[in-house]
C-alpha cells in the first residue's frame, strides 16, 4: 500500500510540488511578509515648524512631504487620498493625524510619540476606535469573491469536462462563446449577490461604516469579479481533475491572503516579497474597499487601483477566455489537407 502511494505520488508532480515546494516557498515568503512591526511610516510634516519637526522624528517616520505652507486641510486630504499614513501639522496647536484604516501603522505611529513635537494632539481619522472589523470586513469581501471566483468557478468547469458534457455541447448549435458566457454568467451573478450580502452583513452586524460612493463600489466589484472569474476559468483550462483545480486555487488564494496588505501592511514587508503583493489583484481591491468604506475616497484617489484592476481584468479574463476556447470549449473538427 505504501509503495503504491509513493508510486502514485511520484507521477503526480503537482501534488509533490504542493507538499514539498509550497511549504518552503511559503515559509520564506511569509517569514518576510508576516510582520506586525512597521518600520516605514509614510509621514507628511506640514505647517510653519515642519522643518524642525521633521528633523526630530524617529527614523520609522519616512517623510513623504515636508511643507511649511501646508495646512490642516491638506493633512486630512493626504490621508484621505492615502498619500501618507500619518500627518503632523505644526504650529500653535500642533496636530497628529493618523490613518485608522492602517491598523498596525497607526498603532506603531502612536507608540512612537516620543519623537513627535511637544504638546501634539493626536487624532485617528476614518476608524477612530481602530476597530479591526471596520478594516477587515471590506477586505474580506475581496477574499470571499476571490474564493468563489477561483475555487467554485474552476470546479464547475472541470466537473463538466470530467462528465463529458462539454464534448456533447460541441454537437449542439451553441458556439464556444455561448458556452463560455453560459458557464460564467451564473457564477458572476451569484458572486454579485454574495458581494451585496457580505457588505450588508458587515454594515448591519459589525457596524462597519460605508461612507463612500456606491457607484465606485459597484464599479470596483464589477471589474474585480472579471479578474477573479478569469482566474477560475484559467485554472480550469490547466486542470485535468477537480483535485488539481483545488490545488491550483489554493496556490492562487494563499499568497493573496498573506501578501495583499489585507492582514500585514505592505510597508512592513521586506522589499524582496513586497513586490509580489503589488502583482496581486486583492491588494488593489483591498485598497479600494477600505478607501470607499472608511475614507469616502474620491475617484481621483482610487484611480491607480482602478487602472491596475482594469488592466488585470482585461489580461486575466482575456487569457482565460482564449485558453478556454482553445483547450476546453467544444469545437468543430478542423480539416487538414489530406
Amino acid at each position, binding site marked *: 500500500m505504501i509503495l503504491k502511494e509513493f508510486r502514485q505520488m511520484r507521477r503526480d508532480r503537482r501534488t509533490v510540488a504542493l507538499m514539498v515546494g509550497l511549504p518552503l516557498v511559503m515559509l520564506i515568503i511569509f517569514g518576510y511578509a508576516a510582520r506586525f512591526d512597521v518600520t516605514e511610516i509614510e509621514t507628511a510634516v506640514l505647517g510653519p515648524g515642519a522643518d524642525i519637526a521633521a528633523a526630530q522624528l524617529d527614523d520609522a517616520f519616512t517623510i513623504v512631504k515636508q511643507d511649511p505652507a501646508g495646512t490642516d486641510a491638506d493633512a486630512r486630504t493626504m490621508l484621505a487620498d492615502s498619500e501618507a499614513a500619518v500627518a503632523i501639522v505644526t504650529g500653535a496647536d500642533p496636530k497628529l493625524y493618523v490613518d485608522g484604516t492602517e491598523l498596525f501603522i497607526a498603532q506603531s505611529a502612536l507608540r512612537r510619540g516620543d519623537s513627535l513635537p511637544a504638546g501634539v494632539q493626536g487624532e485617528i481619522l476614518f476608524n477612530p476606535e481602530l476597530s479591526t472589523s471596520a478594516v477587515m470586513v471590506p477586505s474580506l469581501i475581496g477574499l470571499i469573491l476571490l474564493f468563489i471566483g477561483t475555487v467554485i468557478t474552476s470546479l464547475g468547469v472541470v466537473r463538466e469536462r*470530467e*462528465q*463529458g*458534457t462539454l*464534448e*456533447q*455541447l*460541441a*454537437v*449542439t*448549435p*451553441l458556439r464556444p462563446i455561448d458556452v463560455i458566457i453560459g458557464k460564467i454568467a451564473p457564477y458572476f451573478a451569484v458572486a454579485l449577490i454574495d458581494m451585496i450580502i457580505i457588505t450588508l452583513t458587515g454594515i448591519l452586524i459589525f457596524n462597519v461604516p460605508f461612507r463612500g460612493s456606491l457607484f465606485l463600489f459597484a464599479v470596483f466589484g464589477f471589474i474585480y469579479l472579471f479578474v477573479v472569474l478569469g482566474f477560475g476559468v484559467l485554472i480550469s483550462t490547466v486542470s485535468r481533475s477537480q483535485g488539481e483545480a483545488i490545488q491550483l486555487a489554493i496556490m492562487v488564494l494563499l499568497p493573496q491572503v498573506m501578501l495583499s496588505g489585507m492582514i500585514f501592511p505592505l510597508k512592513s514587508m521586506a522589499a524582496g516579497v513586497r513586490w509580489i503583493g503589488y502583482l496581486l489583484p486583492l491588494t488593489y481591491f483591498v485598497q479600494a474597499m477600505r478607501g470607499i468604506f472608511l475614507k469616502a475616497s474620491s475617484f481621483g484617489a482610487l484611480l491607480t487601483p482602478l487602472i491596475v484592476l482594469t488592466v488585470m481584468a482585461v489580461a486575466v479574463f482575456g487569457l482565460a477566455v482564449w485558453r478556454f476556447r482553445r483547450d476546453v470549449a*467544444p*469545437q*468543430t*473538427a*478542423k*480539416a*487538414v*489537407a*489530406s
Partner: protein
Amino acid sequence: MTWGATDLTVTYGETAALSAVTVECVPGEILAVVGGDGAGKSTLLKALAGIGVLHQGTLTLPARGLTGYVPSEGGIYRDLTINEHLDFVSNAYGLSDWRARAADLLARTDLADFSDRLAGKLSGGQRRKLGAAMALLPRPELLVLDEVTTGVDPVSRMGLWRLIAGAAAEGAAVVFATSYLDEAERAGTVLLLHDGRVLAAGSPAEVAAAMPGTVTESDQRGAPERSWPRGRRWRDWDPNGVRTGERVSLEDAAIVAELIATGEAS
C-alpha cells in the same frame, strides 16, 4: 446524402489513433464500430460527431446542430432531473415544439415515471437511455453513440436497441461503438478497428464470410496462439481449414482478424 470519413488519420503526438480510415454512414442504416480497447473507436466517433480532433482526410458531416452524440462518459449532468436535461437540450438546439417528442422518447425508454428524478439517482442503464433520448430529441440526421450499452443490464440494452433501431427507421444515419459482438451483428454494417486501422468492413455476414480458414469447437484447447475460450469449451482456428458451408459467427471472424493483425497466430 451520406455522412462519413475518407482516409481519416488522427494522431496524438507520435501515436496514430486512426490511420487512413474510411467509413460511410448511410441514412436509415446502422453502422457498428467494433474493436478492443485502444482500437480507435472513440476517436473515430468523436471525429464523426465533429468534435475538435485535428485530422488528415475528409469528413462529410451534417450541418452543426444536426448531429446527436452520446460520449462514452454518458454526457449526463448528475444534478439535473430528466426533464431538466431535455429542457436544456431543447434550448441548446433552439427547438420550439419538442414536448410531444420528449414524452414519446421518455415512454420508449421507460423513463416517463422518473422524469423529475435527478440523473445522479438513476441506474446506469437509465442514465444511458437518458443520454440517448437527449441525442435523439432534435431528430438528428447523424446519431453517434459511443459505447452506450457498456455496463448496461440486458433489459436496458434491449430498450436502447429499440431506440437505436427507431432512430434509423426515422431516417437517421446511426453509428455506434461497441465491444459486444452480438450487438454488432444487429447492425447493417460492421467496421472492425484495430490499432486505428480498419481490419474488416461490410455487413456482418460479409465480414464473417471473409474470415480465412475454419473455426471449430472442442473440449480441449488447441494451439494456444489460435484458440480462445467460449463458455466452458474452446474455439480453435485453423488458417488452412476449408469451409464446407458452415456458418461463421461475427465474433469468430473478429477474433481471427485481430489474431492475424497482431501476428499472434503466425
